[in-house]
């Protein structure tokens, strides 16, 4: 087993295992902390894929931003020590339909991924940041500007939604 394969399998186990904890854990705060390991695992996969800029972005935005926001959401909507999600699905029979849908999706997607003969050239690993920047300011300039407007609108909208109305 080469070093690359070893690193890949470790990262895959960490990512999928912690994602399973996110979905199956009975305590919301455990789900949030398991999500941290999922994000780290995905960042590791990006590094393995030679996407250095995206790995850094994943750590900065997901771990530093989105996860902190989600933790705020957990703490503002719960009494941390009385968390119990056990009542969500009463009997084990309630799990049959969702679990079979998810398992079916997984089987179909991975069968397709394994059976298809993927064509194409493998990109040699090289620093990507400069090239991504040139693409943003050249070929993808319009989506780039649209994304900035989307972020501004989301910022203003989120602030508007949570603001306490004076007449209420």
């Amino acid at each position: 087993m080469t070093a690359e394969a070893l690193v890949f399998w470790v990262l895959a186990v960490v990512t999928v295992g912690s994602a399973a904890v996110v979905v199956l854990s009975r305590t919301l705060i455990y789900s949030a902390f398991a999500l941290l390991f999922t994000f780290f695992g995905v960042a590791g996969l990006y590094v393995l894929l030679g996407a250095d800029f995206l790995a850094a972005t994943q750590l900065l935005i997901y771990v530093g931003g989105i996860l902190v926001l989600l933790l705020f959401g957990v703490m503002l909507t719960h009494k941390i020590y009385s968390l119990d999600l056990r009542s969500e699905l009463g009997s084990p029979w309630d799990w049959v339909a969702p679990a079979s849908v998810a398992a079916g999706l997984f089987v179909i997607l991975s069968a397709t991924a394994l059976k298809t003969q993927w064509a194409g050239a493998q990109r040699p690993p090289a620093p990507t940041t400069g090239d991504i920047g040139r693409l943003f300011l050249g070929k993808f300039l319009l989506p780039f500007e649209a994304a900035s407007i989307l972020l501004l609108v989301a910022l203003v909208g989120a602030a508007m939604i949570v603001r306490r109305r004076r007449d209420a």
Partner: protein
Amino acid sequence: MISLSHYLVVSAALFALGVLGLLTRRNAVNVLMSIELILNSANVNLVAFSRFAAGNLGGQVFAVFVIVVAAAEVAVGLAIVLTLYRLRHTPNLDEADILKG
């Protein structure tokens, strides 16, 4: 040798777990976490294709846009969850039925 299919299977597992969470969870914050899992699985797919199949950086650029949309989505989503909590004193999505006729 680790090939494209390995990454696609990991991404499929992440996606299936996210769908399972979406279908089973009632807690709004937990549903947002499942959506993040699904978006991450799509990103792994995009970056893997950008490395192995396309031979260019278009996939990575698109993954950055997915991250941007995820950040906007979670900000607005949490704002809605907090407002719902203030109105109903529960983060449970089943009890958010004010609009029901």
